C-alpha cells in the first residue's frame, strides 16, 4: 500500500465532490480500525527486521552510574511510543474531515488532508504536513504546513505554515495533544480570526471587503483542488496522494472498506491462540451467572 487507495476521488474537483467527501469521511474513520493492528508496522516496525546489526562489543567497562543512562538508551523508545500514543489518540478522536498518516521515514512527520464541508472554504481539500519537534513532548508545539498556501489570514502565504502557536503558546505535555493541533487546523477555516495575521492581505480583505475575500478564497480552493492529483510534495511511501477514480484499482478497495466489519473477526479466527472464556452474564459480577452455567449443588 504505497499510496492510499482510499483517497481516490472523482475527476472533477468541484462541488460534485461533496457526497464523496462525506462518504470518505465515514470510511476514513473506519480506515483506522482495520489498519490499526498493522499501523505500527507500517511506519515504525517494532523491530528493524532486516537491520544489519552493528556489533561493536565493547568490553564490560566501568559502569556508568547516572540515571540518565537509562533515559539516554531508552529515549528513542519513549519518543516512539509517545508518538504512537498520539496517533492512537488521533484515531480515537475521529476528527471530522481530517486524516493523517505518519510518514514512512519518520514518526516525527505526519501527512494529512483536511476536507472543508461548509463555510467560506467549502469543498476545500487541503493537504498538509505536520512536523513534530524531536524533543516531543517537551518542546515547542508541532508545526502544520499546508502543501499549497491557502488564502487565509493565519496561513503564511509563502511557506503555507499555519499559525499554530497562537493557539498553543506553550506546549504542555499531558494537556496538549497533536489531535488538538489538527482540530485547530480545521477550526480556522470555519471561524476566521484576523488578529495578528500571517497573511495581512487576507486579514484586511476579510475585515474590509468580505466579497473580495470570498472570491479570493474560492480561487484559492480551486487552485488547491486543481493540484489534488499532483504527486505528493514529499517523496514518501506513506505520503497521501490522490488519483482519479479508477474502478479497476479502487473498486476493490472500496468494497473492502464496506466489508470491514467482518474482517477483524476473520483475522481473529486465524491468528487465535488463546480463546478466552466467560460465563459471566453481562451486568452481573458473579462467576458462572450465565444461563448455561455448570451444574452446581
Amino acid at each position, binding site marked *: 500500500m504505497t499510496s492510499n487507495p482510499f483517497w481516490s476521488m472523482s475527476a472533477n474537483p468541484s462541488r460534485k465532490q461533496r457526497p464523496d467527501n462525506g462518504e470518505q469521511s465515514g470510511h476514513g474513520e473506519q480506515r483506522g*480500525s482495520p489498519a*490499526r493492528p498493522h499501523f505500527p508496522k507500517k511506519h*515504525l*516496525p*517494532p523491530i*528493524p*527486521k532486516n*537491520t*544489519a*546489526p552493528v*556489533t*561493536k562489543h565493547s568490553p*564490560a567497562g566501568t*559502569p*556508568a*552510574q547516572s540515571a540518565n543512562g*537509562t*533515559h539516554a*538508551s*531508552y*529515549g528513542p*523508545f*519513549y519518543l516512539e*511510543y*509517545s508518538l*504512537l*500514543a*498520539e496517533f492512537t489518540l488521533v484515531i480515537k478522536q475521529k476528527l471530522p474531515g481530517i486524516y493523517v498518516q505518519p510518514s*514512512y*521515514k*519518520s514518526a516525527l*512527520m505526519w501527512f494529512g488532508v483536511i476536507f472543508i464541508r461548509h463555510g467560506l472554504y467549502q469543498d476545500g481539500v487541503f493537504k498538509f504536513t*505536520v512536523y*513534530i*519537534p*524531536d524533543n516531543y513532548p517537551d518542546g515547542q508545539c*508541532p508545526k502544520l*504546513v499546508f502543501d499549497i498556501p491557502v488564502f487565509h489570514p493565519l496561513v503564511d502565504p509563502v*511557506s503555507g*505554515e499555519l499559525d499554530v502557536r497562537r493557539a498553543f503558546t506553550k506546549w504542555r505535555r499531558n494537556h496538549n495533544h497533536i489531535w488538538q493541533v489538527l482540530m485547530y487546523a480545521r477550526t480556522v477555516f470555519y471561524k476566521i480570526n484576523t488578529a495578528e495575521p500571517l497573511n495581512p492581505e487576507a486579514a484586511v480583505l476579510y475585515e474590509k471587503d468580505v466579497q473580495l475575500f470570498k472570491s479570493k478564497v474560492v480561487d484559492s480552493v480551486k487552485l488547491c483542488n486543481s493540484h489534488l492529483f499532483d504527486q505528493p*510534495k*514529499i*517523496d514518501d511511501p506513506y505520503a497521501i496522494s490522490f488519483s482519479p477514480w479508477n474502478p479497476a484499482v479502487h473498486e476493490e478497495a472500496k468494497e473492502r472498506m464496506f466489508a470491514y*466489519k467482518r474482517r477483524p473477526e476473520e483475522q481473529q479466527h486465524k491468528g*487465535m491462540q*488463546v*480463546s*478466552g*472464556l*466467560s460465563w*459471566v452474564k453481562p*451486568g452481573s*459480577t458473579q*462467576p*458462572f*451467572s450465565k444461563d448455561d*452455567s*455448570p*451444574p*452446581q449443588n
Partner: protein
Amino acid sequence: MNSVCVFVCVCGQVLATGLSGLYSSLPTRLQVYSEDWHCLDPADWQQVPALVHFLHSLDFCSAVTKVAHPSIRSQLLGYIYDGFLVPVLAPALHKLTVEEVMTTTAYLDLFLRSISEPALLQIFLSFILLHTHDNVYILDTLVSRVNTPFQLGTVSLALFRTLIGLFCEDVMLQLVFRYLIPCSHLSRRQRRSLKQRDCYSSSAASFLLLMPSWCPVYLHSTNARSEHIHWPKGAGRNRQNTPEGPKKDAHLNSCPSDLSVSDSVGYCRASDFLMDVNYLHYLWDARHTIANAQRACRFWSAPYDGTDPPAQEFRPDTPGDDIEDEEELIHRIKSDSIFSLVITSPPSALSPTPSSLEAVSNRAGRASSALELEWDDIFAGQDLCLSPSPSLPNGSEAAESGRSKLSPTPPQVLPLHIQEMQRTATKLVHGSYVEESEFLDDVQVYDLVARKDAKSAVLERMRAANQKASGSSSKGLHVGSTTSTVLTTTGKTVMETVNSIMSTRRRSEDEGRDERRKSTDYEITTTSEGYRNDEANNELETILERVEPPPFTNSFNVENHIITKSGDCDEERLQLKQNSENTTRQMGPNQNTQSDLCLDTNSLPNGHCEPQTPHVSANPPGSKATKNSSFLSQYCELMHSLGVEPDCDDMDDHHETFQRRVQALRQKLKEEDEFSTDFLWEEAEEEGETMEEEEEKEEERSSSANGGRRHGVPCTGPFISVLLSRLENLLENSISVNLLLTGILVQLVSYPQPLLRSFLLSTELHSQPSVRTLHQVLVSVHAQIERYVEDRPDYPALVTQAWRFLLAKDQDCKFRECLESQGGFIVLDPSLPNGSLKKALPLPPLSVLPPCPSIPPHAKSRVFAIVLFAEFLKELAAFAQEQSIAPDWWEEFESRD
C-alpha cells in the same frame, strides 16, 4: 429413548466413577527430583501410566461432552462434578501432608491444561471458584497456598499461571477484579483517569529507572545518544527543504542496503548489542501478547474500566449466592428476618492489637496440631532450603514484609520492642509450636499471611452474604460495611474458617460438632452441604469480623464486627447468648484457654458503635498510618480508651502478663458490647431507611474526608497481595519461583482491562497508603538489591557475566527454534535474506556459547534473581509502552457486534 437415557446415565456414572477410580490409582506423592519442579510436563506424566490413563479418560470425557446432546452433556458433567470433583478431588486437595497436597495441586494444574472442551473446563473451574470445602472456597485455599515457602507454593503458582492463562472472566473476576471493581484502591483523580493512557511512557521510564545502578545497560550510556538518534528531524525544516531532506534518509527497513545510513532507526547500534536488542524483543513480544489477550477477552461481559461494572453498585458477593442461593436467601429473609450489623470501633480505639493477638492465639490453639502435621515432614526434608541468610538484612525484612505487605515502604527499621512484640505474636500463633529459628519465623509469617489473606476473602463473602440476606430493609447496614470493611480483614470468623481448614486436616472425630460450630460461627450460603440449611435456620449466625484498615501495616487496627442474626429481636439476643455459650462449650474442650477467651469476644461485638464508622477510613490516608498504628501504640490506645492503664514497657517482656491484660480488655469489651448490641439492634430495625440516608451522608463525608475513598480501606485482594509479597522476596526466592512470579505478573499485565492495567502499571505515588502497587514492591526490591550488592563488590561483575551468559543462551535457543521451524539444518549464513532473527542477532555458533560463569552455588539463585529483576523491568516497561498504544479492546469488539 428410555433405554438411551438409562444408558447415558449409566455411561455418565461410569465415566465419573471411572475418573474417580483412575484418580485413586494415581500416586499420592510424586517423586520430585529438583527444587525447581513446579508442574507436570508431558515428560513427567508420560512416565506415570496411571496418569496417562487418567488423562485419556479425561480426554474421552471431553470428547463425549463435545458431541453429546445438551441434556446428556449436562448430566455427564453433573456426574463428574458430583462424582469426582467434589468427593474425590476436594478432599485430595486438603490432604494431610504438604507433599500430598502439592501432588494434587499439580494434578489439578495438569487437568486444567489438558482439558480442551470448554464445558468440561467450566465445571472444573466452577469447582475451584464456587465449591467450598469446609466452608472455604477452593480458590481461597489455593491462593493462600501460594504463600507457603515450599514446593507447594511453587506448584500453586504454576496452577495460577495456568488459570490466568485461560483468560477466563469468571476466574479473573474472583481472583482479581472483584477487588478492583470498587475502585477503592484508586484516588478520585486516578479513577477519573482510569481510561487514559500513559502517553509519554512515564511508567516505562519509571520501571527502567529501577535497574540496578551498576547494571550493564549503562555500559554504553556515554555514547548512547549519538548512536541512537534515529529519525530525520521534522520540525526544524521549513517547507522548502523538506522535500529534499528525507530523500537522503534511508528508508527505515525497506531495503537492507540502506541500513548503513545512520539516521534511520538505530536501536541496534548500542555497544552492548545483546543487552539492547532484547528490549526490542520485549516490545515485540508485548505487542503480540497484548493483542492475544485482547482477542481472548473479547467475549467478556464487561470492560472493567471503572464504570462498567459500576464501582458503586458492586457488592463483592458470595459467588454462589447469586446463582442458586438467592431464593433460599429471600426465603430466609421472609421467615427469619436476617440482619447484619456492622459495628466499628471509633478511631480512638483503633487498636485491637490485643485482640488480634488473642485471635491469633486462638487460631494457634486450634491450628497447632494441624500445623504440626502440616509442616513436620517438610522440616525434616527440606530444612534449610529457604532460610534467609542471616547476613542478609532483608531476610527478616522479607519475612515481615508479608505482614506489612501494603505499607508503602518496607518496614526496615522497626523499633526493637515492636519487633519483639511481633515475635511474641508469632509465637502465640503457634502456641505450643514455638521455635526460634528465623526460618520458622519466616514460615510462620508466610502462613499467617496466607491465612489472613484467605480470611479476608472469606470475610468479603460473608459480608456480602449478610448484605444480601439482610435485603433492602437493612441496606443501611450494608453501608456501614462498605464504608468500613472492604478492608483486608482479619476476623474471628475468618480465623475460624481458616482454622477449620486446618482442623479438617486434623481429621478430628468430632466432625459433627465441628461442623455445627462452623455453621454457627458464620454462614456462607453456597454449595452442597445440605445439613447446614437446616441448622442455619434455627441457629443464629454470628459473624464477627475484625478489620485492620491499613491491613498490612504490622498491626491490626480496627475492629469491625458484623453480626448476622435471625429470629426476632429478643429471641435474637437470647440466642446470641446461648449461642456464644454454646460455641464456647463446643470449642472449649479441644481448645486451650486462649481460644476460649477468643470466643467470648467472638460473640461480642465491639462496644463502639457504628456512627463513627466513616472515621475509620477517615483515618488520614497519608498519615503515617503505618507508624501510628504500630502494634504497641495501638494497644496502648485501646487500653486507654477502655480505662485500663496500659503498661507498655514490660509488655514485650512477658506475654503472660500481656495475655492477662488482653483478658481484662476482653472483659471490658464484653460489657460494652452487650450494651451496644442492643442499641444497634433496635436502631437497625426501626431505622432501616434512615440508615440508608445516613449511609449516603457518611459516604459523602468519608469520601470528602479522604479524597474519594468510598468503599472503605482499599484493598486489591488476596491474590495480588500474595503475589506482590512473594515478589518482594525476590532475592530469597528460588529461580523457579521468581520465573513463575514474573511470568504471572506479565500475564496479568497483558490483560486489556483498564482496572487491572492501570493498577499494575501505575507508577505514580498512590494516595492510598494501604494499597501496595507493583511499582512500590519493585522499588523495594531495587533497594534490597542495591543494599545487598553494596557490601559485595564482586557482585556486579558476577551478575554481568551471568547476564551475558543467559542472554546468549536465550538467543541461542531462539535461534535453534528458528532454524527448526524453518525445517532442518540451514547453514548458519548471516547473509540469508529471510530469518530476521538471524539477521538481527549475531548468533554465536552453536558451540561457542560463553561458558556459564562459575557462580558459587549459594549465590546462584540470588545472582539470577538480580538478572531476572532487571529483565523483568524491561519486560514490564515494554508492556507499559505497548499497553499505552494498544487499541481500545472493548470499543473494538463492541463495534463488531
